[in-house]
């Protein structure tokens, strides 16, 4: 039996110091009041319309992501460590991208196998040799952390393409402040509310050179996208236009928005659509979500895309094992945050080991996301394991395997009352002239007992994340 770490209670079952205030409040608040607050949260989330769309069900199916009232609380000292670790990691990842699309030093020196990077489907040859403003590729990064049974944090994966979820971080905080204002008054919880401001500043700093007052827009695939609520929310909070591909057009390598007063130039696009769909002239020709000529304007330095196309080559699961190496190579520092030990199944020894231990490992598709295409060995049936074995054998290079971490738990309201459920944490890191880490993040919780899959598309819920300032 692997040791388990509970965020709220120590091994003896007593509340940890940083949870004491909350635990007292929880104990002193009558059951009926707690239920009332949970109902209030539900009604408010419905009314505000914070929903997401589930793929694979009826199209346009809007659902609430379940919100849980017990926060994840991170003590100040722990956060300081996480913050430096995140800053270091994102810094190195951006330097890696700059290098890959530039001189390729790290490949030439053999620190990372070149074919792993250049043969990767997320590598964009169109980006080769292009200089991006400030050398920043991933302006907005989400790094998924878990705490294992040993009490240590591990980076589960990096998200450098279009990381989502930050609107839930902000809405969850708003909800908690509304439900239990007294707890915010009694302890120092680091505010997250400035995120939209910081994001806007980061985006403006990314503008093409020589543009003093850039026009920023958020590019969304449209109202039927699962994260549409977030796109709209962020545009609204930043006070910028929310555009769809059809609202933009390109003339002479310049991007314009179609407005009621004629065409208006756009300088920075926070794009929430994938590389593939950005520009049908360069990427997928059948895409109707993008803007013909957009990439040309980008190459000409007339518009900035955030994040840059091609960032996926740095957050790919097959490149993930090399991130500690990147930190040593570019920063001459030791990584502050641990990676989860990872077997690359392209390696015959790793493949053999994995096939013999499928029942105890987590196997992930290299390009999978959202909890799709993943095997959790200890929780899988014999049939599921055999099915996965066949898939791995067909294309081993498409898979990695990791030991099943016993994710830490946090008490969570479920049918039967409060019960421990597994959680992870996605902090958000903004890279402009400086790298800024929002003190908090999105805590996701696997609502099914024993489940380790926290993705909202797989029935996960969310919690507020409190970073204590003292």
């Amino acid at each position, binding site marked *: 039996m692997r040791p388990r770490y509970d965020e709220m209670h120590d091994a003896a079952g007593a509340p940890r110091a940083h949870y004491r205030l909350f635990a007292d409040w929880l104990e002193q608040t009558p059951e009926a009041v707690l239920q009332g607050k949970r109902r209030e949260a539900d009604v408010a989330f419905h009314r505000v319309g914070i929903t997401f769309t589930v793929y694979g069900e009826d199209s346009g199916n809007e659902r609430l992501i379940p919100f849980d009232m017990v926060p994840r609380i991170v003590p100040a000292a722990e956060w300081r460590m996480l913050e430096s670790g995140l800053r270091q990691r994102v810094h190195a990842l951006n330097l890696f991208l700059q290098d890959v699309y530039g001189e390729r030093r790290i490949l030439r020196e053999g620190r990372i196998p070149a074919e792993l990077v250049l043969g990767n489907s997320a590598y964009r040859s169109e980006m080769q040799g292009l200089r991006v403003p400030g050398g920043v590729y991933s302006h907005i990064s989400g790094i998924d952390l878990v705490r294992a049974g040993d009490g240590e944090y591990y980076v589960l994966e990096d998200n450098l393409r279009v990381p989502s979820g930050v609107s839930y971080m902000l809405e969850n905080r708003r909800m908690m402040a509304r439900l239990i204002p007294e707890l915010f008054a009694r302890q120092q919880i680091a505010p997250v509310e400035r995120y939209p401001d910081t994001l806007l500043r980061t985006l403006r700093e990314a503008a093409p050179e020589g543009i003093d007052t850039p026009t920023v827009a958020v590019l969304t695939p449209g109202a039927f996208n699962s994260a549409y609520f977030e796109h709209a929310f962020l545009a609204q909070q930043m006070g910028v236009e929310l555009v769809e591909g059809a609202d933009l057009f390109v*003339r002479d390598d310049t991007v314009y928005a179609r407005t*009621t007063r004629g*065409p208006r130039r756009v300088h920075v696009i926070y794009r929430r659509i994938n590389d593939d769909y950005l520009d049908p002239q360069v990427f997928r020709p059948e895409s109707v979500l993008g803007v013909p000529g957009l990439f040309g304007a980008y190459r000409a330095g007339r518009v900035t895309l955030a994040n840059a196309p091609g960032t996926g080559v740095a957050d790919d699961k097959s490149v993930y094992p090399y991130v500690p190496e990147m930190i040593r190579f570019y920063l001459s520092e030791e990584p502050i945050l641990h990676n989860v030990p990872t077997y690359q199944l392209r390696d015959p020894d790793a493949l053999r080991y994995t096939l013999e231990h499928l029942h105890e490992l987590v196997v992930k598709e290299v390009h999978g996301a959202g909890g799709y295409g993943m095997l959790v060995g200890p929780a899988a049936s014999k049939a599921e394991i055999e099915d996965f074995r066949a898939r791995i054998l067909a294309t081993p290079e498409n898979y990695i395997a990791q030991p099943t971490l016993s994710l830490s738990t946090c008490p969570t309201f479920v049918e039967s009352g409060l019960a421990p459920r597994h959680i992870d944490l996605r902090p958000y890191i903004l890279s402009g002239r400086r790298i800024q880490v929002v003190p908090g993040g999105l805590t996701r919780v696997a609502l099914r007992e024993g489940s380790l899959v926290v993705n909202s598309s797989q029935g996960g819920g969310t919690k507020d994340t409190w970073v204590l300032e003292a």
Partner: protein
Amino acid sequence: MLCRTASDLYWVARHMERAENTARLIDLAQRMAMLPERFERGKASAAPWRRALDALGSADGYLARHGRIDGAGVVRHLLLSPDNPASIHSCFRAARESARAQRVAITSEMYEDLNTSWLEIRLLDAAQLDRDGLNQVLERIKIRSASFRGVTIGTLGRGEGYQFLQLGVFIERADWAIRLLDVVGSHDGAGEAEEALDAAEYFRWSALLQSLSAFETYRRLGHPAVTPTGVAELMLLSEASPRSLQTCAQSLHTVLRDLGGSARLDVVRQAGAAEAQTRYARIEDILAGGLEHWLQAAMARLTALGDGIHRQFMTSTDVVPA
């Protein structure tokens, strides 16, 4: 503002106004259907419902589909039917969808209000209509519409977004001033001496005033009796009624002048010309020339103005400024 945003906001307002006016139309038909049959000059009691469908230009389609016209069926069609794109159900759905696409351009209170309305309307079915009664349901729909109007006025910054919502409100409301008048006036009250008004006519024209919540306004203007001339004047030419064609035309002209920034724009001239038609008209002349004929011409002007708004603000020419 994006062309798409302008268009979506315009349609949010049109659909909300359409939902409210459809509720008023049902109310009117219901009142007229209560008139004892002997006053209806031999027509079946379904006649008011037929006229309601006629006012929307959908009687033939309805008959083809349902075979016959009866009150309960028409109410379901106008209120609940998800298949009728003009039903109150569909209007709320469309308004909420457009608002959802434009959450950035409106206040969160506005979206929450629309979302609340939709969650309520979505659950409305024939059984609940039976339970609560038609009048109570119509009241609720008008209150939902009023609530959105109030939240909009009270929370949305005065800018282009507000102006496009205004355009949507007044284009749609003007349209309904004409349609609702047509329901009662299509048998033409022109030339009838006031003393010749029989009880049935009084009943119909005051039903129209009540459905428009305009009875008090009408009385306050000092009309001694409810006459076709008086009611038609109130609905077409009066500046005192918030729902008259004149009030709508004037608002459209004002908003378009502000929005266009220049009186030289085609669409602004169009709106000015439309306003002049009601500002300087006399009700006697309108009735003498035939009410129905005048209403048709007014509807054509309105349609052209709607097209003009769309062309000017919601279509992109992609001609880059030099």
